[in-house]
């Protein structure tokens, strides 16, 4: 049957977590689930369900479910299991078939750890530099750039490199 979508377009596609979990034997404990929005990453991202708690007794939360799962995000296993509750209503989840499970584990084993090195220093902005020079002050200052301490952020700062104020676009134009 051809499906015609109406209304606003959505960013997510798939099923809600309860639609998957509720139809599985033993509430799908031990099965692998992934999110379609994680397809944008090359590295494998999926959940291994550890425990399930339905939320039908909570008012207006019948679409949701509490799932404790091991999370593998961008080829990295989180040290502690995570709880999926507030985002469990999103129709974004997909069950990984049993015959594909080994494939995903293999992908995880063969995944290279992510690396990202960013410049750690930057010069003063041009106008500020001019003002300091006008006042005969030291304008040759390198400001250290701070990297966000996010759990998924693997960026390492390279203090020998200087960041630029120029956009990448023009850089590419010049190189071309």
């Amino acid at each position: 049957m051809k499906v015609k979508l109406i209304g606003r377009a959505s960013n997510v596609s798939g099923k809600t977590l309860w639609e998957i979990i509720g139809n599985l034997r033993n509430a799908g404990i031990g099965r692998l689930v992934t999110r379609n929005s994680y397809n944008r990453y090359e590295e494998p991202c999926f959940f291994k369900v550890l425990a399930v708690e339905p939320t039908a007794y909570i008012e207006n939360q019948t679409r949701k479910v509490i799932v404790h799962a091991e999370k593998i995000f961008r080829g990295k296993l989180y040290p502690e299991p995570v709880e999926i509750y507030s985002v469990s209503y999103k129709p974004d989840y997909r069950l990984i078939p049993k015959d594909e499970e080994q494939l995903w584990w293999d992908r995880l084993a063969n995944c290279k750890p992510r690396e990202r090195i960013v410049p750690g220093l930057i010069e003063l902005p041009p106008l500020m530099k001019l003002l300091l020079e006008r006042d005969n002050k030291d304008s040759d200052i390198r400001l250290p750039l701070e990297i966000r301490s996010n759990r998924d952020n693997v960026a390492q700062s390279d203090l020998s490199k200087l960041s630029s104020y120029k956009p990448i676009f023009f850089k590419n134009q010049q190189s071309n």
Partner: protein
Amino acid sequence: MQYVGKNTVVSTKFLEISTQIFLQPVRYTRKPRWLPKAPSKMFRVPIRPQISVEERNELFHLFTNYRTCMKAIYKQMEEELEKSSTGEEVLNEIIQKEEKEWQQCLAINNDWNAEVASDRDERIAKEKEIERQTILENLINSEEEKRKMMEMIEEQVRIEKEKSRYYITEENIDEAIENALNNIVSYNYAIDLNGTKFDGENKSKEADNESPKLTVESIN
């Protein structure tokens, strides 16, 4: 002018309609935010902006770069600001300034103290002089009183001495008794307005006649 992207022309048109000389509503010339969706727009599906991957990446890079750089600059400026109030040179300067002010305050205080001290010495000298005078006056007054008292006492003593001649003593008691018996005085009489003395009933008529006529002058 309100700027609403593609609808700029429409909004200015609305403004022109509602613009009067004294009334220029700027907000809510359109539908207020709290009103529900217009029936004509109820089923309108807005078209999503189509952004190419390169442009999106470029924008992402620009915004992240901007935020990171701004954070670094903010931090630098905060450090400078903190240095301007807690740096070593600034602190030394503040200490020197405070020391100078303290010395100035001390000098002013010493001046005041000297002034007050001279005033106080003068005042104390004046008070001492006044006290000396009062003590002297009191001394003189007391001497005078003492002298007056002595005079009064001596006068009394003199009067008593004079009176003592008529005292009845052991020696002259017989004489005094004799005298009293000889000169019996009777106060049992009456006087009229003219000073005529009327003796009591026991007295003889002779005695009546002999009694002198008392006048006010004689009584006094």
